[in-house]
């Protein structure tokens, strides 16, 4: 693998994502391409030359022309408040990647896919779902997505549209703080009972991805192992507390 070089990208547009996040769409003409699940390093430079770096998940799929980053605003953070409140179309910053060779999904081996997202942890799974839609429609896939409320859910309309179009894609929501009126689905943190009801049974062909805040990932990964899923079939990506 060659050296990952810093490249200058420009902001094409910004869209709100739930209540506390934005998706930043970038023009990245020198982008070498990525696999779903990979992330990038962003480097901002202040006018006096001071620089700060952080990592963000790529939410766009490999075939999409623009590179999209999902950024959740972390109170007291340094880079995420800039990217979620200050940045405007036409602004420029540096980026390098793609980074990460483990928390990635490749359609080629087939099998079964179970993804568990907490909050903004859904970002890498959007890249997976868009890529799957293009190259692996019909692959048995479940996304279990825990959000505080429907207003906090990210990419909800797109996720539901993808699921409507493909009966092999099952999306299960749980709302941990506020559920809609007359909601009949889950309204609690993901626990052993929810996992037992939503995850496909242990299977050699099953790949499991868990992404979200540390306590979310720790709890779910440990519970999955207790339920009999092989530790080596479970890939995790943890955010924070200060991984803003």
């Amino acid at each position: 693998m060659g050296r990952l070089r810093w490249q200058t990208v420009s902001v094409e547009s910004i869209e709100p994502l739930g209540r506390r996040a934005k998706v930043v769409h970038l023009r990245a003409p020198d982008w070498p391409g990525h696999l779903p699940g990979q992330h990038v390093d962003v480097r901002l430079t202040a006018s006096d030359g001071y620089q700060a770096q952080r990592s963000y998940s790529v939410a766009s799929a490999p075939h999409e022309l623009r590179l999209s980053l999902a950024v959740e605003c972390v109170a007291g953070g340094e880079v995420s408040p800039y990217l979620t409140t200050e940045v405007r179309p036409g602004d420029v910053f540096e980026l390098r990647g793609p980074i990460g060779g483990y928390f990635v999904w490749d359609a080629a081996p087939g099998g079964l896919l179970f993804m568990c997202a907490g909050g903004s942890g859904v970002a890498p799974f959007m890249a997976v779902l868009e890529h799957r839609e293009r190259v692996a429609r019909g692959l048995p896939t479940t996304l279990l997505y825990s959000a505080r409320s429907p207003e906090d859910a990210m990419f909800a309309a797109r996720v539901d549209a993808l699921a409507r179009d493909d009966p092999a894609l099952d999306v299960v929501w749980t709302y941990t703080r506020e559920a809609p009126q007359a909601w009949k689905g889950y309204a609690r943190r993901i626990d052993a009972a929810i996992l037992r009801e939503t995850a496909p049974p242990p299977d050699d062909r099953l790949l499991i991805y868990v992404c979200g805040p540390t306590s979310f990932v720790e709890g779910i990964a440990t519970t999955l192992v207790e339920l009999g899923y092989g530790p080596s079939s479970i890939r995790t990506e943890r955010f924070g507390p200060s991984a803003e």
Partner: protein
Amino acid sequence: MRRTERARTAVRLTAPRSTVSNHSRPISRGFQGRRTDPEDRHRVPPGQYVTRDFPVLSAGPTPHVSLVEWTFSMRVGDRPLGKWNWAEFQDLTQTRAAVDIHCVTKWSKLDTVWEGVTIDALLKAAGLDAAPTPYALAHSDGGYSTNVPTKDLAGKAMIATRFADAPLSAAHGGPARLLVPHLYFWKSAKWVRSIEFITADRPGFWESLGYHIYGDPWHEQRYSGD
């Protein structure tokens, strides 16, 4: 008899001053940033920021191993050099170290306090004056491994079992993790169970997945080719 020594095992390096002109760098309009405290600046490698949290990052589920089953061993090829169970490990000379740690995901944490057994003490307990080969591979529960030159272990590294005056938690690598504080923190392998001394360098888990073979934070060796 347990002995506790006070030692500062980490060599504190001075940050190399950037010689690259900022004129070529695009300015991010409106970005102010949060500067590192001037007192700490020489302790924070390029591209890092200081955090008081202790984030958890690992590739898979946290292994939970009972202290009754836990052992730590060292070997060269197939030849065992030494093996200790938990009680025997606690009887080895315990060293305390206050060090700064630097994660490749950009956070640095200053003045972290660890206790454990230095690699030097382990080699001595195995009857060796020095590491038998130029490189080492640390192996962990969960299949994780990482490579470190043995010159970076001598006088600089330990197998740590305590953090901040308490037993090291499983999420942070307990019961025992390798601590090589002067390299990026993925080199400080969690859940470490053995060290294999090897003649030729061999990439470990993250090193096979695009991360730097050596990982010096002061030279920002994050990824392959940096």
